[in-house]
């Protein structure tokens, strides 16, 4: 039995949408392997991360359906990734600045 309030907010994407995302994910995987095989120096990491973030975003927004969820759910999802960045950022502030103050005798 169905009740009137249960289905109105559930968007059902088409199979085509999902297959398209899948194809994009496969493409980006192959792309990231290809880029990694060349030596672009520091750019390698940046490109690899950019591609990974793009892939992850597609999974989150479309496969996990976050684009259709409530603003609250979106905020929760974002806060998780944000918090990890806080751990990285403030934590690295120690490691990256340790050498700034010379140690007497070294």
């Amino acid at each position, binding site marked *: 039995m169905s009740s009137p309030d249960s289905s109105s907010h559930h968007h059902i994407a088409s199979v085509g949408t999902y297959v398209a995302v899948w194809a994009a994910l496969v493409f980006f995987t192959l792309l990231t392997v290809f880029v990694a095989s060349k030596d672009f120096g520091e750019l390698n990491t940046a490109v690899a991360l950019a591609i990974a973030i793009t892939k992850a975003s597609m999974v989150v927004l479309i496969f996990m359906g976050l684009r259709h969820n409530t603003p609250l759910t979106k905020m929760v999802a974002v806060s*998780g990734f944000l918090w990890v960045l*806080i751990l990285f950022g403030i934590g690295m502030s120690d490691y*990256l600045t340790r050498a700034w103050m010379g140690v007497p005798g070294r």
Partner: protein
Amino acid sequence: MSTAAAVAAERHSYLDEPYGIASWLLTKDHKRIAMLYLISITMFFALGGIFAAGIRLELLTPQGDVWTADTYNKLFSMHGIVMVFFFLVPSIPATLGNFLLPIMVGAKDLAFPRVNLISWYLYIIGGVIVLTVLAMGGVDTGWTFYTPYSSIGSNTHVTLAIVGVFVAGFSSILTGFNFIVTVHRMRAPGMTWFRLPLFVWAMYATSIQMILGTPVVAITLTLVAVERSLGLGIFDPKLGGDPVLFQHLFWFYSHPAVYIMILPGMGVISELVPAMARKTMFGYGFVAGSSLAIALLGFFVWGHHLFLSSQSVYAGMVFSILTMLVAVPSAVKVFNWTATFYKGSISWESPTFFVIGFMGLFLIGGLTGLFLATMGLDIHLHDTYFVVAHFHFIMVGGAVMAFLGGLHFWWPKMTGRMFNEALAKTAAVLVFVGFNLTFGPQFILGYLGMPRRYYSYPEELQVWNVLSSAGASILGLGYMLAFSYLVYSLFKGELAPANPWGAKGLEWQTTSPPPTFNFDFDPVVTEPAYDYNPSGREVHVG
């Protein structure tokens, strides 16, 4: 109401229906789960107290003559582990929070009742594991498990202890996640965010910290366990690892953890103050906001535990400033509580005693934190008894006082019984006096340079240590007195009316104790929180 009617009313509460031990152990009722937690955390508090007694016994004399050094290390380690992970972190959230949160928002239960029960079982499993570790000799790494001693050096059962703490941490995560979803999605009609009791705001803020912080300590301790058991050295200096990385990861959780331990206490105080002063909370918005501010800012200050660890001085400066900043929202709360009391109609009942005790002791604890936040001072105070005193003022003078205050305030609601007021006031005074005598001298000891976690000390420091140990006995007496009259009230206490304190809030509109589904009616909220002046007459301060 008449005795017969009262007894009849009592027989239909959540305590009586359904009947039988299986109905308790398989319950999904948040109130029963709260009671299960209450019994369990009380037992762990007693255990932690026994370890404390062992510590204070040794410190009566300057020499290490009661225990061996190894045993002493185990005593303070087990004291910390049990008190932090098995008492303080779950105490208010899992007992008062579990019981009151759904009722305060006007819901029939938490969002995920089965998950709530699982959280209690995880807590018990974690506890049993730690008790097993105790039986096998305990751990001696300190509750902070610093590497490389915990990962390579110690030959105690570190891995098993870590498993126990991990499981208990997961229990904490499940509680937090349940609270967040409940507050967002289960509020009764009319219960807008700004009509929520401040206790709910505090529990919500605490839950955010539980969710974002606990997993980090979980993985960090897991990595230590992995290093011990599989030799995968993440923190091993010989392989290029950094033991200080452990400290970063550990304190990323453990600093928010101290807010997890105090925020609920502040939430309790925020309920007791308007009730005891019969006056609406001054600056409700600021108090609510300050809970969130503490929850958020609390994540940015962990490096103040690493000032002397070889952490970069520049990072230290940033952490120092941020730590001073996080004191501000706490101060905001103290100002607002005080302003609420001012020109209020204060009734001197036992909860008030605990509130006053909290406010004085938390104030001292908080202010001494500023001494430690100042890097230059911390160089001298780090790892001394000054730190020990500071955090005990907050945790015991603050959190435990608040817990006791809340326990007394809501005892009639949860158990349907009144306790002996005179004894309660006596216990409050005993606890306050005992506490000050125990931990006040420790500030002096720290200032004079006595290191923490040492079982011997220079002769000239003995007088302060003796005072401290004497105080600990009085403190213990106070707790035991409270335990006695509260348990006694369960059997012989006068039956409680629905609203013995005359307080505002949804929980006081249902019976004492409440029925299984919390309300016999559907709550709809139309008035603001703490509506003690319904005429709309403004109360001017000053």
